[in-house]
């Protein structure tokens, strides 16, 4: 019984647990509660992935209202992968958050943080499980609204303007998505995504549908920070609390990518999206621009958090580049990188959170000689950095390998060169930090700095371990991504 309702519980449990955090006045109780919930969510996610891999796509009617009238929850392999990413990151960040939040947030805001964290988790999971276009919008807004709050909780006052900037951009994106969904509803008379996709071909050749496609594409592109719609991202990541940055960087933009995949492949269909609307070429161009421009900008940042934020924009470019090929190889490369980048970036941002806890700053100029004081944190940063660059035996290498071979299979060899060259740009911006931390003479205040507490180091190293594990044995993740890509492209698994 419980197992049969798993898709609904996956979303419902964090949703109903969230308000309780506000009622628990003691921050510690709120933390314990939300940690338990986040682990429960992970356990459910693992069960769900197992079920999907055994039984195939799960369809679940909410309240037993038959589709297409009721809301359908629909989870295929692509969705299962996303759920796994979100739940894993959610569960790993939570134990870390206690010390970090205690240090960065005012005590009276702690309850608010845990509430919004669980709400954000709810929204992100909801987007993935739902098969209903309007429901998707609702969940996307739950996650966005809660992340505006989470970002505004940052210790510096600039967190407020960063959150406000994100709010404005995000709301424009949400409105666009809503307009797009509204137009689709107008033309097809249904909100169930599968149902829309079946009715769409009759009306595909109308201006309304083309406009709907454009609105959805642009709206989602804002949410996932596709270059040049990324301008909200660097500030939001820089000024949010460390735990929030790590969580959002690893999940929120990824869910945006997932929504894009859903609309392109499931709702509009590959033929309409890529052959009629030629979105592949546009995405490829923007992805290349994202990779090059954002990597170059990252090199010139002196705030390490902001540097990693720009790096995220570039990495989203890699994911989009894979998707823009619209082949099984390309989409699975994109999804593999989506998973791997979540592991990499979360680890790096968490390591930065450790540094911020002890140093009170993540400016390059304050990090001189830091490696001697915080060897474990810096070692984790280097390991995560190597994975970001994509050296062998790390997760980043697997992504790069798949992406380059997907690009080469389609004959785009200049793109292959570009991908490889841009990984050198990553080498440059990571190595700036390494040189400062390992070679520069520490200042007078430095020797008071201690290593970060175990409760924060363990999550960081767990993620680093996951990076190395994927680097050595990627067959599982590659198989899931391949099945996911095939599910999206509507092909039978080979």
């Amino acid at each position: 019984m419980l197992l049969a309702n798993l898709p609904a519980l996956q979303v419902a449990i964090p949703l109903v647990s969230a308000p309780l955090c506000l009622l628990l006045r003691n921050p510690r109780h709120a933390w314990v509660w939300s940690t338990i919930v986040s682990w429960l969510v992970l356990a459910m996610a693992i069960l769900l992935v197992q079920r999907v891999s055994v039984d195939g796509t799960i369809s679940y009617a909410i309240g037993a209202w038959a589709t297409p009238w009721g809301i359908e929850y629909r989870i295929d392999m692509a969705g299962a992968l996303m759920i796994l990413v979100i739940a894993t990151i959610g569960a790993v960040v939570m134990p870390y958050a206690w010390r970090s939040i205690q240090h960065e947030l005012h005590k009276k805001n702690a309850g608010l943080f845990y509430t919004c964290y669980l709400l954000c988790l709810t929204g992100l999971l909801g987007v993935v499980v739902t098969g209903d276009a309007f429901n998707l919008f609702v969940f996307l807004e739950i996650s966005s609204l809660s992340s505006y709050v989470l970002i505004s909780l940052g210790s510096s006052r600039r967190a407020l303007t960063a959150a406000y900037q994100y709010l404005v951009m995000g709301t424009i994106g949400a409105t666009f998505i809503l307009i797009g969904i509204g137009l689709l509803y107008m033309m097809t008379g249904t909100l169930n995504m599968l149902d829309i996709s079946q009715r769409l071909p009759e009306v595909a050749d109308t201006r309304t549908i083309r406009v709907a496609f454009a609105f959805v594409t642009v709206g989602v592109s804002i949410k996932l920070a596709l270059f040049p719609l990324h301008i909200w991202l660097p500030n939001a990541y820089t000024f949010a609390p460390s735990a929030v940055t790590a969580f959002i960087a690893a999940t929120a933009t990824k869910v945006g990518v997932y929504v894009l995949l859903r609309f392109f492949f499931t709702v509009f269909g590959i033929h309409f999206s890529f052959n009629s609307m030629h979105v592949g070429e546009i995405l490829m161009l923007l992805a290349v621009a994202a990779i090059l421009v954002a990597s170059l900008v990252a090199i010139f940042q002196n705030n390490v958090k902001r540097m990693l934020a720009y790096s995220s924009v570039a990495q989203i470019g890699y994911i989009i580049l894979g998707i823009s090929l619209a082949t099984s190889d390309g989409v699975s490369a994109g999804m593999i990188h989506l998973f791997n980048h979540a592991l990499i970036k979360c680890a790096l941002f968490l390591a930065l959170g450790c540094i911020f806890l002890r140093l009170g700053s993540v400016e390059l100029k304050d990090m001189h000689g830091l490696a001697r004081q915080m060897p474990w944190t810096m070692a984790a940063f280097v390991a995560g950095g190597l994975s970001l660059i994509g050296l062998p035996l790390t997760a980043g290498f697997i992504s790069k390998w798949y992406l380059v071979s997907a690009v080469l299979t389609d004959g785009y060899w200049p793109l292959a060169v570009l991908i490889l060259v841009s990984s050198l740009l990553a080498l440059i911006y990571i190595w700036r930090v390494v040189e400062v931390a390992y070679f520069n003479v520490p200042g007078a205040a430095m020797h008071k700095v201690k290593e970060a507490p175990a409760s924060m180091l363990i999550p960081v190293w767990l993620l680093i371990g996951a990076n190395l594990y994927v680097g050595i044995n990627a067959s599982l993740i590659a198989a899931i991504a391949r099945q996911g890509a095939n599910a999206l492209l509507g092909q039978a698994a080979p």
Partner: protein
Amino acid sequence: MSPELTVLACVALPLLAPALITALHRWPNPREAITLLTSAGLFLLVTSLTGGVLNGARPAIDLAEPLPGLKIGFEVEPLGMLFALLASFLWMVTSVYSIGYMRSHHERRQTSYYSYFAVALGSVMGIAFAGNLFTLFIFYELLTLSTYPLVTHAGNDAAREGGRMYLGYLLGTSVVLLLLALVWTWSLTGTLDFRAGGILEGVVTPATASILLVLFIFGIGKAAVMPFHLWLPAAMVAPTPVSALLHAVAVVKAGVFTILKVAIYIFGIDFLATVPATQWLMYVAAATILLAALVALRQDNLKLRLAWSTISHLSYVVLGVLLATPLGIVGGGMHIVMHAFAKITLFFCAGAIIVATHKTQISEMDGLGRRMPVTMAAFFIASLSIIGLPPLGGFWSKWYLALGTLDAQQQVMLGVLLVGSLLNIAYLLPIPMRAFFGREPEDPGNAGIKEAPLACVAALVLTATACVVLFFFPGPIYRLLQLLIQ
């Protein structure tokens, strides 16, 4: 122990040694004992494999499969055997030398020095025994990363600059060019296994093969073919034992070794000869030989002169490979060994001079031969071996390389080899000449100069002697290489 497990142990032993080295960081003597024991143990393990390999055994073991069809696995074949023997033997000698050098220099952070050294050797073993190109690539990158802390050991601004060049060139070439070649080969052939006769023949057009060959030759930056050679002089900021083992033997030879492997097992010698790019890449190698030798002539810093000489000599091996004849391959493989023994001796001497006198410039070394006769005699012997004169080992490799050029009907290349040897004479022999016959400058500081510590001198005497021995007994090396070209 079965040969398969021995192979695994050869890679694992040096990779695990740092745990013990770090654990013993408070007690220098037991700590160095670990390094010595590990290197001796490694050499014994490698030697125990040799007989089997000579008799045709090819012990293989697979460890993991990161991606479907791409394995991390090891397989011992004659060329890898030769390289592993060379590197493990010289690691032993270098460890003795290191102890003398690092202690009398009062270097800081010796624990991390010995740890990273062991990791670097583990990576070299991984390269030597790699069962496929993918595994080789992994250890190739690991070697770059594990030697970075050694190159930047001094921790000052010069080290940072040198390290930047080192990492930039080696990672840059391997990530952009070599990795591209790998993925491309993979997508064309569906395999990266090393197979006798190669995997590309019949699959790719001559034009594609040319592009791939260019990507491989330049992508393997450790071979320092111009224009990707500047990392090697930059790496001379490292402590001298690092320069000796890693930048005369392990790292650079890993580069030319990889080129040999690619030529023999990915392209296949016969197919390589038909690839159009082979012809003009040969001229790039020839230009590297001559230009680097000319630059070496102008260096006053001894380590830098040796570094440029190494660049020149690496391209001898590359040239031998590109001749794509059996004799060229034998010559190239031979030169890996002969040059290693001679060059490590020269670096040991340079280090001994630094330890004893703190002199780094050749112009300051007038008359030094009378104060450090053993060191300078060894320097002289090794120089002769580099030049390729009998009765020294270096003669054999030049001999086979020359035969290879004739076999391939590349008379121009024969000329290059000869001119290269003349340039060797011009930049190496003046150093012992000045040391023995030059007038010592009037400087009271010179009075107290005597030979470097025993550990240093013993090591350089041993390798210099080996140069002579290899002239008389090149048989085992030849037999291993013979297996490659049958």
